[in-house]
């Protein structure tokens, strides 16, 4: 994985003025398309309950009201609506350990597959990678059975375990590409000094692995937080469900007003959006790595 290839460079050629105007108009209309749902989400979330009606969907709110957020977060027992707060926390308890464990495993695997190749490791790599493309439907039936036998079914540790296992291919891929770009001479020098495989990893590779860790952790954080399928299969009790599952239940319930659903959507999207806005550059690298070529 090389540096993000998106950085700007000086245009070698400048189009004539009328064409430039057209370019900006096209880009601005595309931006409108992407931002339209955001506009709706934000204004709806800020409306007071009196202002919420389908007919006034696109109107600006009269002021800053956070009623919808409060209801989406805390729920309302009198109306039988459960809030998303516990599920938001579940997602945190799920995502953080899963991300850390995945990153560690990926780093070790990537190190071995790039710097300690053994006979068959070049065949092993694509065989591992295949695991990130499979439709998970094809493993769900035995997964549930095995998790039940292991006593992990229906619990957050069970869900963490599942995400770590199925995160192995992508985290290994990103780290393998990252370490492959690090010159082997760096390790050779350490070898002469008598360091073994573990010493080389700890003293030479790990200190320069930070960017790799950031890319992998952002990737895993986003995909674990956003996951729905494993969540809905592995956790059947609402008390342990992650936020995506809870939001889907909320959206499927006819007693929850749509402005509350919108506020809930923002709550569910916020952590990954923040990561994207703050660390977008690294997010991009993960994305491009996902297409293998990186």
């Amino acid at each position, binding site marked *: 994985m090389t540096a993000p290839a*998106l950085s700007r460079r000086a*245009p070698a050629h400048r189009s004539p003025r009328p064409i*430039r105007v057209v370019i900006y108009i096209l880009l601005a209309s595309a931006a409108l398309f992407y931002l339209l*749902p955001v506009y709706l989400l934000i204004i709806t979330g800020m409306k007071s309950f009196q202002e919420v009606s389908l007919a006034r969907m696109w109107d600006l709110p009269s002021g800053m009201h956070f009623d919808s957020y409060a209801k989406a977060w805390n729920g309302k027992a009198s109306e039988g609506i459960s809030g998303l707060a516990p599920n938001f926390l579940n997602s945190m308890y799920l995502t953080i350990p899963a991300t850390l464990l995945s990153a560690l495993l990926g780093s070790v695997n990537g190190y071995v597959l790039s710097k300690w190749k053994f006979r068959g490791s070049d065949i092993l790599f694509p065989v591992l990678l*295949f695991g990130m493309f499979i439709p998970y439907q094809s493993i769900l039936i035995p997964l549930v059975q095995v998790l039940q036998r292991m006593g992990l079914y229906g619990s957050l540790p069970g869900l963490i375990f599942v995400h770590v296992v199925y995160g*192995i291919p992508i985290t290994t891929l990103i780290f393998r590409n990252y370490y492959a770009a690090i010159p082997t001479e760096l390790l050779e020098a350490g070898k002469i000094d008598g360091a073994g495989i573990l010493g080389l990893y700890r003293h030479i590779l790990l200190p320069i692995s930070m960017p790799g860790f950031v890319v992998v952790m952002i990737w895993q954080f986003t995909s674990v937080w956003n996951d729905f399928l494993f969540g809905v299969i592995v956790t059947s009790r609402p008390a342990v469900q992650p936020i*995506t599952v809870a*939001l889907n239940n909320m959206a499927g319930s006819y007693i929850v007003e749509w402005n509350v659903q919108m506020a809930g959507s923002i709550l569910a999207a916020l952590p990954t959006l923040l990561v994207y806005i703050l660390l977008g550059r690294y997010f991009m690298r993960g994305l491009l790595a996902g297409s293998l070529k990186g």
Partner: protein
Amino acid sequence: MQQVKASTAAAASRPATQWLRKNRDRLIAIGLISPSVIAIAVFVYGFIGFTAFSSLTRWDSLTPDFTLVGLRNYTRLFTIDRFLSDLRNTVTFTALFLAACLAIGLGLAILLDQGVKGEAIFRTIFLFPMAISYIVTGVVWRWLLNPGTIQTGSSGINLLFERLGLGFLKSPWFTDPTIIHIPPDSWPGAWLVQNGFGVLASPRVGISVAMISVVLAATWQMSGYTMALYLAGLRGVPDELREAARVDGATELQVYRYVVLPILRPITLSAVIILGHISLKIFDLVVSMTGPGPAFATDVPAFFMFDTTFRGNNFAQGAAIATMLLFTVALLIVPYLVYTTRTEAEL
């Protein structure tokens, strides 16, 4: 400690100890990677094997029944209305989604490559949906495309169209049960019916209009990713190449047509495979946005598998759908994996 071991060991075992010492790092390497290898061997390949095996059994309730019944679960699928609708919908979705993402992605990448001001801002805007869960996308687009009822009047996008004087663009969106197909009473339809290809002139083979709404939401989410892939590719085209073409008198359009686009071809291949396999697997978005829709107009195989297995407890039937899904994805992914890892080895 090794010295102690070496001195106490019998002379015969000395070469073995030496071999061990020499290859210690190799053994540790294999030891380090083996937990992951075992996990993938069991949780991916073992589980796939179990699913494939289950699909050949009579396991149709909560109690496993591993009586082998051959391919019955597969042949039965092709008599189930919902599955046949799913196949049609998957084709519709994949074709439209791919076309939309590639066109928008390439278009935006080329526009951004013209040295525009605020490029980073545009890029951020085009890409942020990638960071969001399909569930959020589904919930939001369900309300955006909610056509409204007679009681409530228009809502969402329809209402926006009305306000902007574009009322003719109003649509029932994902509530539309229409399947566009060759009418059997038209002359090509009649010809097909007469020659035994009646199915080609029936709603079995056609475009589910409701699916277009799902394509719209999915494109909103994924076209930025395609843009990023293309933009990375465009940034890799050496300026000298374009300059040389310009010196030879090529117009800007010709530079793209004959110099830039051919270089981007491998990126298009990657994008087609990544997006294609995503569209075959699509699940979350459909669950949260539309559900199966009117007469399964927006149903997809992944959702049918979920319903059959975990709501209907027909495990064998669900396993058959899952196996077919995996097989289709593998047809796309395996050649790609072989190709990319092999070209990598040659470098």
